């Protein structure tokens, strides 16, 4: 099953069809406990998932902007529902012993990002939101559109831009 399908199923099960998507509620629904903690070390750390057969904890770097934290929670939920493993630590740049960055290469990271994008910015909701805006203002500048949608879905503008590109909208 594709990451997008996992995300869609959760949204359907919880009957979530409004932006912004309440990621914290989704985590709670899935039985994951959220824990916010600022990270002060070197490098970038967005979040982690820790679990055993009974419990799951999602750690979020609370030093990040709130939109980024929402993405981190969604990303960890992706690991929770799609991947096996007791521990996932997500760092923007993480180097394995072979010197390769695991972020860009690790298929599980890519899947978790795809999942997070669909969960926070469901394709149908984004398309509807774009339509609403462009029908009102056919000449809306792209940058304004991205900023508006980012605000509506409570994601970073960067994430929204990437999503719009992937959906073939811009």
């Amino acid at each position: 099953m594709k990451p997008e399908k996992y995300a869609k199923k959760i949204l359907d099960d919880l009957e979530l069809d409004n932006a912004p998507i309440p990621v914290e509620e989704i985590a709670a629904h899935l039985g994951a406990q959220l824990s916010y903690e600022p990270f002060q070390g070197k490098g970038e750390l967005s979040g982690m998932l820790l679990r055993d057969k009974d419990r799951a904890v999602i750690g979020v770097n609370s030093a990040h902007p709130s939109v980024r934290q929402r993405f981190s929670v969604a990303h960890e939920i992706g690991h929770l529902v799609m991947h096996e493993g007791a521990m996932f630590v997500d760092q923007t740049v993480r180097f394995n012993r072979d010197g390769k960055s695991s972020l860009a290469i690790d298929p599980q990271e890519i899947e978790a990002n795809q999942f997070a994008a669909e969960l926070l910015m469901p394709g149908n909701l984004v398309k509807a939101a774009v339509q609403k805006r462009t029908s009102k203002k056919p000449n809306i500048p792209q940058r304004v559109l991205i900023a508006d949608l980012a605000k509506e879905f409570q994601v970073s503008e960067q994430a929204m831009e990437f999503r719009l590109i992937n959906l073939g909208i811009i």
Partner: protein
Amino acid sequence: MPRVDRLYTEFGRLVREMRKDAGLTQSALAKRVGVARTSITNIELGQQHIPLHVLYPIASALGATPEKLLPKSEFAATTTAIGKLDPQLMIELNKQDLAASTKRWIRQVILKTSIVSGANDEAGKIRQKNTRRSRIR
């Protein structure tokens, strides 16, 4: 400190004791085993969790059998409380190839949720710095 650290602290103590008995310096032992001297230092401090296959060359370099270096099972005692995360996770954490600051953050997250057995009563000790490196994935 996490329970697993007691095991490695005791292992390190045994290595140091036997090394001294053998009249070896850390450098000399390191040379025989084929590792850096700092590795021996960390092992003796209980700060490096060695893989099983490294036990054998260390024992052999000390002129001892591997069994002699194994801590008694009481040092490996862990407790699992119902509804709490498996302490195995803490062991997994120590094995990960992560920066010390990252490990500290993870411990902090775990402490906040107080779901690992012994996490609260051990909180003060957990803050000890963690200098382990070379982990196997």
